[in-house]
């Protein structure tokens, strides 16, 4: 299909916006992810009259279908029990905007919604990092399924590493995932290092840019200019998604960066995402009202120069020589990885053998769950097929009993052989009593099934 991104550059700017603050939903009453989070943002963007602008079109959210969730996640014990209505609305909001964007009703979009999702991985036992299901991944797979798009870039601009999104697309060479974040040695979730570069068949399609604490606008915009934008130019995505956290802000209580509202607006102007989806950001008074106003104006193509926090003056934060050297070093290293991605991929595939296997320990901070996984990906000889995957999972909640599962995943552009083998794996494991749940996800045919070995029943999503 024609590249909608290119077409949109020629058209008058019309930004689609969904503001869904979920004023009646919280994780717990005092949790950062609570009713109050977008209250002052509401006040600011409504007082500005942004919804009246001819460049802004406000949309109403809808609920995502369970099938939309199952297309991405193996939810244990089931999709229904893992998500609340608020999660379905946050995810559904991205789908409303995706449809409006793909149908050319709007030129770009911002889902200013909560609850967030970028820490949710393929297998979901509960809430980790305030996230139950991954809004961006749900949207991307919905768009790819419905509109036949193949190449997507997701840029995670949250201060925390977007480990969930990374994990979901780790083996997919058609999804470029770039995350810049505060160095994982100093912040949750403790990952996102430069050596996490994608699965053997997708090396370089995951790019992690850990940044030193206290990095100001200058540092982040440098990374964008020198690394992210050139990579995007090479990759030529059909869709660019900003996984748009706002916690790089200099007042965020949960992180230590020095990014400003002006920086956020500039970032969105430079990156020009087709669709941005809110992630974290918990400086609900000092940052969010200003950052969101800045992002909306920038995405609507309007002047944002008058947006500033009350205590902000240009030049408030300076970058030290050491910090600069650190960032330049990271950028140069990753430029090298990107340049060499094809050779690196070939070597990695060769080294992996017929199946690539890795073990993962995953901790769900919010729900106190410890999960152990073994992931296995077929190194399919077909160059265009990224190979089916299986995941063996076992998760213990608190000190209670554990839930186990076996998931079989077929990528969207899988070969016939992989699809057949995957189906056989699924059928074989339905009688395997080691697992409580067996899941089959064939994105190629949108065939999504969850089998309970205790109840002996199969649910088709």
């Amino acid at each position: 299909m024609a590249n909608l991104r290119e077409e949109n550059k020629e058209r008058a700017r019309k930004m689609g916006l969904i503001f869904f603050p979920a004023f009646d939903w919280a994780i717990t009453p005092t949790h950062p992810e609570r009713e109050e989070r977008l209250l002052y943002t509401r006040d600011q963007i409504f007082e500005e009259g942004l919804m009246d602008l001819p460049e802004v079109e406000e949309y109403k959210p809808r609920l995502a279908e369970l099938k939309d969730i199952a297309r991405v996640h193996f939810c244990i014990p089931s999709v229904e029990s893992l998500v609340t209505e608020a999660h379905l609305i946050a995810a559904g909001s991205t789908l409303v905007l995706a449809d409006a964007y793909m149908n050319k009703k709007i030129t770009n979009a911002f889902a200013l919604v909560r609850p967030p999702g970028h820490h949710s991985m393929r297998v979901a036992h509960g809430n980790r990092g305030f996230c139950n299901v991954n809004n961006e991944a749900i949207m991307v797979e919905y768009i790819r399924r419905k509109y036949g798009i193949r190449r997507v870039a997701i840029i995670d601009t949250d201060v925390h590493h977007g480990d969930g999104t990374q994990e979901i697309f780790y083996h997919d060479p058609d999804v470029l995932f770039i995350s810049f974040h505060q160095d994982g040695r100093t912040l949750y979730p403790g990952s996102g290092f430069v050596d996490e570069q994608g699965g053997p068949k997708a090396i370089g399609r995951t790019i992690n840019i850990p940044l030193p604490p206290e990095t100001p606008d200058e540092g982040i915009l440098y990374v964008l200019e020198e690394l992210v934008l050139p990579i995007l130019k090479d990759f030529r995505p059909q869709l660019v998604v900003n996984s748009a956290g706002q916690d790089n802000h200099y007042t965020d209580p949960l992180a230590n960066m020095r990014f400003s509202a002006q920086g956020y607006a500039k970032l969105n102007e430079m990156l020009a995402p087709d669709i941005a989806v809110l992630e974290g950001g918990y400086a609900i008074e000092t940052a969010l009202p200003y950052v969101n106003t800045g992002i909306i104006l920038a995405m609507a193509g309007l002047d944002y120069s008058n947006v500033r926090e009350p205590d902000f003056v240009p030049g408030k934060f300076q970058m030290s020589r050491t910090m600069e050297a650190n960032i330049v070093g990271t950028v140069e290293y990753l430029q090298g990885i990107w340049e060499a991605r094809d050779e690196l991929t070939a070597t990695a595939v060769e080294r992996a053998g017929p199946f690539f296997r890795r073990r993962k320990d995953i901790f769900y901070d919010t729900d106190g769950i410890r999960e152990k996984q073994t992931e296995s990906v077929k190194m399919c000889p077909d160059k265009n097929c990224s190979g089916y995957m299986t995941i063996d999972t076992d998760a213990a909640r608190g000190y209670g009993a554990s839930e186990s599962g076996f998931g079989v995943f077929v990528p969207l552009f899988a070969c016939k052989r992989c699809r057949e083998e995957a189906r056989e794996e699924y059928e074989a494991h339905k009688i395997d009593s080691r697992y409580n749940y067996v899941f089959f996800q064939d994105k190629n045919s949108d065939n999504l099934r969850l089998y309970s070995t205790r109840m002996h029943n199969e649910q088709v999503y």
Partner: protein
Amino acid sequence: MLIGIDVGGTTTDAVLIDEGKVINTSKVPTDHDHLLECLMSALDEIVRDISPKKIERVVLSTTLITNLIAEGKTDPVALIIEPGPGMNPEGYTLGYEVHIIRGAIDYRGREIQPLDESQVKNVAAKISERGYRKVAVVSKFGQRNHSHEEKMREIVQKASPDSQVEMGHQASGRLNFPRRAATTMLKVAAQDRYREFADQIAQAVSKRNIKAPIYILKADGGTLPLDTSVEYPVETIFSGPAASTMGVLALTPPGQTSVVVDIGGTTTDLALILDGVPLMSSDGAKVNSYLTHIRAFAVKSVALGGDSRVRADGDEIALGPERAGPAYCLGGPEPTPTDAMRLLNMISIGERVLAEEAMAKLGRNLGCSAGEAAQKVVDVAVDKLLREINGMFLAWEQEPAYRVWEILQKEEIRPQNVVGVGGGSLGLVPLVAERLNARGIIPENATVANAIGAAVARPTLTLTFRADTERGFYTVAEDGTSGEIKDRKFGQKEAEAMAKKLIVKLAERMGIKEYASEAEVTHSEVFNMVRGWSTSGRILDVSMQIPAGLITEWTGGGR
């Protein structure tokens, strides 16, 4: 006895109601340069032979402000705004004389940058020198902290003691600074002209020995006593469609869902009544090019009327938007939908022979018979109305929502009735109703439903209460009332009780205290403010309203 008068664009309609029955009606042509005379001649016609003592209530709906603003006949206003951080204020279109002042207040009403008073002084001197005597001063978030607006007013008034200065928070306390600035400006611009008009009306009515209270109809279908209405001149805009909708409410059974189809000569106004409640526009009304905070019914004006010119465009029918004169069957120059309906015997006005001639002419261009041409015209008109009506329901369903429950509860609603009113030919109404699977209703006195609506509309009132217990104060959006809250335990129950007290006071000030007991809480919400993992205060929002409705004296029609 109740009197309702609606000054419309073409005619001024009046009714006299006694014990739920319309006992007299009148229609006079509207003369926009002599509105008072129109009003009085419509009035005189219905009260002839009636003792003035028997008259209990007079309600007027006028286009005065609509026309004054449209024709630019209001007073020139200088606007002084304090926009603070956010959108570039140079981008606002708020008139020619706009001055931007340094200073800022934030969303919780905290001063984040002091007001630059010397700058205000300079501006005040400049606008005074230029001859402005009407000034609007508006701060972003001024509704949550009035001090900067008050200071600006003080400085302007000192520089020019004879000027009238209006503050933003008194025009509206709702969020949306550009709309508040426009609303404030229009209010101060229209006030003097409106007051003159109100005085003249009061005199003219009293000259006729009518001692009954006089009310003015607002765009939200509510009434206001004439003397209070001078404080709210702009709210009287667009009262015509509100009058028709209230008329339909009065003439159909209570609690039903209806589409109001008010057909005029060149336009048809569509409005919705959902479960007996007229649908309000979610945003304020648009007045000329200005978006405002003025509450109004959601009315869709369609360029299609009984007199719309009909032409052949290839083998398609082109309807309107302009009018060439009356319908051909009534002696006009060109074919119209009225002619089509006449030929098909859907209506009985006009000469059938002329209607046939008109349709035959149209048929020749379309390559079909007169009867077929008439059918085509009617089909196109019905399709157009249906599209608009369905679009209105869809727009209502698609209104943004910010809470989980709001998303879950909104269901698809379709109308039970399609009600035709107004001066135009109503032949299309049954056809539209049939296509919507609804009942078509053309009530008795449909041509003066607007005046009936005015006569029986009750006052409306809204109150939006907001308390911030951490900062220890509350504000009322509608009139900028504010005060302290000392009780740190102030919760939802206390907030609702306080809102109820405040709406009674507000109703008293508006001269409608007898309706205060009708006020209901429409929305109540608490946000716990958590700072450092413990609750440091609450933000409480309570909305109350007296919704648009009918006075209890009305016992007629569908009641």
